[in-house]
């Protein structure tokens, strides 16, 4: 049938390539930090303090993005900082996704008392102020990688649960679910074979978004000194330091900030791009 609707195609590609490219670059940088970094990220040299980036007057060769007030190389610290940021993004993002999406899927599709229990839990959970909650958690557990990841998971699983529940509910009302029931498929099996593929695109978008959020949360916690030890290079920690010397050495603030911005943006765009590219319904 000659029909215009089948002719509509989604423009894909650029978004996916740019965001995916940046993330891939970052992963490489994090993995190869020891070989790529021109200096030891912890090495201090007060004589080399606040050196400007390579293209500014007064730069020293070898310090491409300048140094901070303690003479530590900014580029090396960003590279090593990527390790922590990516670990947090990956682990915290996936765990949050797994827990939140599973609970949301169950609540939205199985309904009944399962839904009542999970929905109430979400409501109660969301009534806690999240920042206070995470600070409290870290105060109790002590700063460290595990605490950061746990804080993110504990706070953010509701984000997944709510969205996935709504989506699963909408899909559950479709006739293909009734059709599976007529065919004699069990509820749990229907949830995985029929519902899950249809909420998966939403989950992927949420997951990448969550990875971006995890990077930000880690930066915020570092900024308020609740992340891992202050010596270790983290983007948030660098931003906090850079803030104090913004008038003397802007580069200490700007480079980690730009990296953080690009990373978070790339994560959110990556999800959208993946959905556009790989969802059979949109393709």
């Amino acid at each position, binding site marked *: *049938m*000659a029909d*215009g*609707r089948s*002719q*509509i*195609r989604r423009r894909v590609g650029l978004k996916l390539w740019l965001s995916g490219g940046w993330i891939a670059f970052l992963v490489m940088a994090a993995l190869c930090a020891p070989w790529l970094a021109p200096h030891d990220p912890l090495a201090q040299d007060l004589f080399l303090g606040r050196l400007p980036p390579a293209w500014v007057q007064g730069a020293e060769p070898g310090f491409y993005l300048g140094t901070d007030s303690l003479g530590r190389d900014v580029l090396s610290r960003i590279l090593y900082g990527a390790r922590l940021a990516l670990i947090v993004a990956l682990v915290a993002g996936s765990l949050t996704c797994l827990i939140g999406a599973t609970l949301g899927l169950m609540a939205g599709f199985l309904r009944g008392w399962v839904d009542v229990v999970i929905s109430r839990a979400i409501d109660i959970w969301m009534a806690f102020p999240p920042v206070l909650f995470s600070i409290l958690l870290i105060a109790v557990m002590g700063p460290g990688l595990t605490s950061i990841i746990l804080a993110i998971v504990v706070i953010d699983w509701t984000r997944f649960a709510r969205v996935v529940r709504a989506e699963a509910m909408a899909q559950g009302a479709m006739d293909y679910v009734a059709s599976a029931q007529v065919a004699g498929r069990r509820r749990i099996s229907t949830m995985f074979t029929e519902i899950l593929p249809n909420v998966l695109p939403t989950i992927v978008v949420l997951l990448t978004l969550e990875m971006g959020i995890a990077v930000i949360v880690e930066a915020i916690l570092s900024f308020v000194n609740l992340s891992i030890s202050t010596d270790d290079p983290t983007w948030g920690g660098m931003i906090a330091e850079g803030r104090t010397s913004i008038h003397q050495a802007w580069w200490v603030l700007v480079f980690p900030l730009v990296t953080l911005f690009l990373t978070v943006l790339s994560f959110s765009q990556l999800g959208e791009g993946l959905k556009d590219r790989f969802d059979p319904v949109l393709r």
Partner: protein
Amino acid sequence: MSFLAIKGLSARLRDTSFPILRDVFLSVEAGEVHGLVGESGAGKSMIGKALLGILPTSIEITHGTIELDGVDLLRLPPAERRRRIGATAALIPQDPLTALNPSRRIGPQITDRLVDILGWARSTAEARARELLDEVHIPDPVRVMRSYPHELSGGMRQRILIASAFAAEPKLIVADEPTTALDVTVQKQILKLIAEMQARHGTALLFVTHDLGVVSKVCQSLSVLYGGMVVERTTVRDFFREPAHSYSRALLAATPKYTDPLASLTPVPETVIAAVQAEVAAHDRSQRNG
């Protein structure tokens, strides 16, 4: 001089240049009811939308003119065009459940247009709305005007939309599948109502539908569309007595008819589809070459 004259109207998808309307000619006299008939994707709704200036943004008009009451709408600047369409034309939409704003009372939804576009006093507009609701046989108009849409049945809502379309005394109304969402018994009442209102107000009506049964009840003339192209334009009488185009004949034979179950519901033969598709392709070729 026809009241509505569409000449050589062509439209296509912006992204892929896929043609949606192909060189459509159409004229409707004042007070005439003209049916636009075709299967889904034939472009019948798009003509009404182009005329009312509500085409989706993904579709662009490439050439042609739409003359409404002697003025080519497509040549007018956008603001002027909106004003002119608002003053002379109206729409009876397909789905009465979504066409009314669920969070506002019925009364203002009818009178807004009169007050905002035509500059009537609110009290005059309200009096007019009551009069119209009475005209479309709605009992207790005062109470209905204070109601919210969800408090009324589908048939009731469609009556309100009809009243609302006639409110500003438009010279042309586009009815886009106005009874498709309704039960057959309600459909009958609504069709009779539309015919009654149309006759009383002498409005020209462009009636978009896929149902040949409905066409035979309300229209005087019709255009049959396929692939955005008008394949036949004729009077209703001639069409049902002797359709000229093979596609029209096949469409008529495929339409169910409970009085004649064996002769109706004949599938449209592949050869007929192939022939009409070839016609569309030939038209596209001639467009490219000339």
